């Protein structure tokens, strides 16, 4: 498994007003993630998404640094992004091409130069997600679950070694979120999963609870879920 290290990485946003006030989104955090599946849970606005976006350079830390397999994310952003795939909550924002196979091909443009070979590879990827029958369908005609699977296929087509998923099942119904959850849990990649689906979180090896811009709990996924539930119950 790859090693993800946060070395006192924190994010502060300047308000840009006259008083020079600022807001801390994520307090300096030090973490080493080596487990195959890591769940990140916590309230809306707690800093989970910022933490996730640090891992592939979508957000740059204002203090400290983030290192993925020895590569500093801020300095080697494009190399890190090739290694760290990112799956968003809303697949509609992620799917940019008209049909499923074209969207997967878009991901492969860099790695497979020949158009025919690229098409063949994209079909193989879709097939592995059980989506070969929808290859030429418009992404807008798919169900929410299928759309999220196409988005995942697009991200995993380039075979990254880490997948960061930001609430990938939040918009899905029960059956679809189980299906996407099962796909995520079966991946060979290292998975950093942000989720409000506590059953899904429990299936990970390690659990982090984020609260008020800091890691409030770090331990086994089961214990993390219990900590989170208790923290909500006691307010």
């Amino acid at each position, binding site marked *: 498994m790859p090693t993800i290290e946060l070395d006192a990485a924190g994010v502060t946003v300047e308000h840009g007003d006259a008083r020079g006030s600022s807001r801390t989104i994520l307090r300096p955090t030090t973490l080493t993630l080596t487990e195959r599946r890591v769940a990140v849970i916590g309230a809306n606005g707690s800093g989970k998404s910022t933490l996730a976006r640090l891992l592939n*350079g979508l957000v740059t830390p204002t203090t400290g640094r983030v290192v993925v397999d020895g590569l500093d994310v801020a300095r080697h952003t494009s190399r890190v*992004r090739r290694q760290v795939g990112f799956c968003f909550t809303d697949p509609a924002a992620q799917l940019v*091409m*008209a049909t499923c196979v*074209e969207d997967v091909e878009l991901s492969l443009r860099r790695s497979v130069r020949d158009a025919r070979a690229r098409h063949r590879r994209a079909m193989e990827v879709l097939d592995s997600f059980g989506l070969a029958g929808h290859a030429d369908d*418009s992404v807008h005609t798919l169900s929410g679950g299928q759309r999220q699977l196409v988005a995942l296929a697009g*991200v995993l087509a380039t075979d990254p070694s880490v997948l960061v998923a930001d609430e990938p099942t939040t918009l899905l119904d029960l059956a679809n979120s189980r299906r996407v959850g099962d796909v995520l849990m079966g991946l060979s990649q290292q998975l950093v999963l942000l989720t409000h689906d506590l059953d899904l979180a429990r299936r990970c090896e390690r659990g982090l609870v984020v609260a008020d811009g800091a890691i409030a709990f770090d331990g086994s996924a089961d214990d993390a879920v219990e900590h989170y539930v208790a923290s909500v119950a006691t307010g």
Partner: protein
Amino acid sequence: MSQPSFLAVYRPGDSVLHHARVGVKVGGLVAFSLVVVVVRGATLGLAVGGAMLALAVVACLVGGLGLRASLRALRPLLVMVVALGTLQWVFYGPSAAAETALDLLALALAATVVSATTAVNAMLDAFVRWLRPLRAVGVRPERVALTFSLAIAALPGTLALALETRDAARARGLGRHPRAFLTPLVIRVVARAHETGDALAARGLADID
């Protein structure tokens, strides 16, 4: 989840047009459009407009689109054709109106055939090929191609956002308020653009060359 088909989506097939090179199709479309636009005049313009429309219909059939699908693709355009035709009729008379209507329909149909028989990726590959010589003056072909495809993809997405926002305004009884519709729509479109930008960056597509 039906989307109004403002844009013809690629329909895979095995026709001559599907197998034709992108350059041939786009070149043909350019030539076709030039003929339609350049040839004017009372009888000649009308005759050529009609002939070109017939040619476009034949192309639709050859491309395996079928008449019904082709007509469906034209439906959103009909309102505009009728409005423009009426104006032309009032100012320039019936033959000018008929010519404009024929020309517009022929152009739209021809463009539909090209989009329906050409995969977006094939079109992008062609753009990249054609733009490659411009690399010397600082043009980045992959980036230009990606911009085109994003613009195409943004249309149905933006339309869906507009419909959702309109419904939300109506649900609150604000259906007639332009501000209740436009303000959230603009905000949502910009937010969507940010998300899409993040998604492109995350997929490593922001730095392809």
